[in-house]
């Protein structure tokens, strides 16, 4: 009550408290997106940009079959990666939480999972090439075992190698949040389920998976946004055969078609936002985290 008497000063306090984050968000998220949005409605002739309103960039975008093919490929990569990283991430976390009983070993093994992250993404990605290539380790190994007479071509510079690299790069983003929500499950709850007569499989499906869903959803958001925003892996690992949305955008930028690239970027933001909101619709992360 005494605060009330100081009048305007009190009313300002909450605004001052949110100001740092608000300013940061406006400067580094709001302004760039507004710029992008404005740019996507301007005209260009490939040499210079004219600040005149046009819907031409979007018309071109939506009428080109290439756009749909790009989004189809990118979303396909995202979903395959999502499924694979979820299965691997869930299994690893399950092992760490429920089979490794001592906290010391749990932390040690989780750190082992992060070891690949001590080098850069590029190095981890490139290191697949000598392994998967025509003359690579894998092909030589299976040929020397007599399993095949010809080297397998699909291993490298293919959609397979792109997805494989994504899975390798992003599984940790799945393991950590799932591990986190699984570690919060009170072991007594699992005993209570067993006491009620539930089998191991029933405990998994009725208790552990529902209670890990926050972690799965958080991991899914990481993986989907990372794959949707990638162009480097798609370009290098496919040997230029598969194009992702962002790699197409990069081509446009290289050719100085900034407004077209901006329109594509806006569409990508919308699609990613829809995917993320679909994930949030399944799991209410905010209320789960508040618990």
């Amino acid at each position, binding site marked *: 009550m005494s605060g009330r008497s100081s009048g305007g000063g009190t009313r300002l306090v909450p605004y001052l408290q949110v100001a740092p984050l608000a300013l940061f968000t406006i400067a580094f998220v709001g302004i760039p997106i507004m710029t992008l949005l404005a740019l996507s409605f301007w005209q260009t002739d490939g040499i210079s940009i004219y600040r005149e309103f046009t819907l031409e960039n979007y018309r071109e975008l939506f009428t080109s079959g290439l756009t749909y093919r790009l989004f189809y490929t990118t979303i396909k990569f995202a979903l395959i990666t999502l499924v694979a990283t979820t299965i691997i991430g869930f299994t690893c976390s399950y092992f760490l939480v429920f089979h490794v009983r001592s906290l010391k070993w749990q932390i040690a093994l989780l750190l082992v999972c992060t070891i690949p992250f001590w080098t850069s993404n590029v190095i981890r990605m490139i290191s697949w090439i000598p392994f998967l290539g025509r003359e690579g380790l894998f092909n030589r190994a299976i040929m020397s075992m007599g399993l095949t007479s010809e080297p397998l071509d699909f291993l490298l510079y293919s959609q397979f190698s792109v997805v494989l690299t994504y899975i390798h790069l992003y599984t940790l983003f799945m393991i950590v949040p799932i591990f986190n929500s699984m570690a919060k499950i009170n072991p007594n*709850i699992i005993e*209570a389920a067993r*006491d009620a007569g539930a089998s191991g499989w029933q405990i998994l499906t009725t208790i552990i998976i529902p209670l890990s869903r926050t972690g799965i959803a958080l991991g899914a958001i990481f993986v989907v946004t990372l794959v949707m925003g990638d162009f480097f892996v798609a370009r290098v690992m496919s040997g230029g055969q598969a194009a992702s949305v962002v790699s197409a955008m990069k081509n446009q930028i290289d050719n100085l078609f900034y407004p077209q690239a901006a329109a594509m970027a806006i569409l990508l933001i919308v699609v990613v936002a829809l995917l993320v909101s679909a994930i949030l619709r399944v799991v209410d992360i905010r209320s789960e985290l508040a618990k």
Partner: protein
Amino acid sequence: MSEQSRIDIRSVTKAFGAVKAVNNVDLTIDGGSYCCMIGPSGCGKTTLLRMIAGHEQPTSGTIRIGGEDVTHARTGSRGTALMFQNYALFPHLTLTDNVAFSLRVKGVAGDDRRRQAKEMLDRVQLGHLADRLPSELSGGQQQRVALARALITNPKVLLLDEPLSALDEFLRLRMRVELKRLQNELGITFIHVTHTQPEAIALADQVVVMDHGLIEQAASPRDIYNHPHSPYVARFMGGQNVLSGTVTGRDTEGRATVEGSGGIRYDVATEAAVETGQELRFSVRRDHIRRAEAASGHNSLSGTAINIEYQGTFVKVALDTGLREEFIIYMQDDAYFARPIEVGETVHAEWDAAQNHHLIGLNNSTGNPHED
């Protein structure tokens, strides 16, 4: 029902590495009885309970429920239901789904199991909260849900792991009454682990006092209280003073004459063979001790009053008698207030020889929780 829910524990040992949490225990719990297991933390009572529930496997020995060997039977298929100390409700399921969980894993159809769960919730007076999540309930309500979830499996034996320890005093007393009523109504065996003496005395048909993985005494509450087996049981259950002395001979009535510190003579009716010269321990109920005018040197003790607590119906007077333990007298409040005692005053106490209870058991520990 009673034969079906009788429990026989034979030579059961549970070792965790080199530590024997439960050490070669034999115990029979009558079907349909209320059994309380009591002891300080780390005494093995919870481990024994968990072995009956099937959450731990005995290292050796057998456990029978209703005559059937369930030592290695699967948890959830041996007719037991365990109520966990922190309730362990499923946080993502509504009360109905929590209670219906065991029916769900048995494959009972949705409508049927929800109806049964609703009935069980009504029984614990929570029917109106059926669609809430556990986190929206108070501690007492969560406990009743845990009870409903355990009972819906129609267990032969209900196991309760410190069920009242998380509740406040008022709720604890109310739940205590409710548990006893429920046990009478259902007629199944309840095994209740606790570390609170009044709880065990009030509820149990059979009290099992444990220490260091061993059963010190298993008997009715009245027996435990009036005829404790060892100094440990007497101290742990409370209400007793433990004294000791050297046997010097026998009197005409066959009682052992025991000489305590300061040359005071005690007559103790022995319950086992004793030899002259050996040390003998005995207990005296605190409420059977009178105040005397002078030291008589016979079934008596004198000391300095060091603490006086008014308890409503009686007054607790603690004396320093120069022994290791305080000597405590419970005086009727009218007797006390007729002539109140000042702290620092010398007080003489005496009692009838018949109040001396020979403690046969050797466990002389104080009953404090282990430091481990």
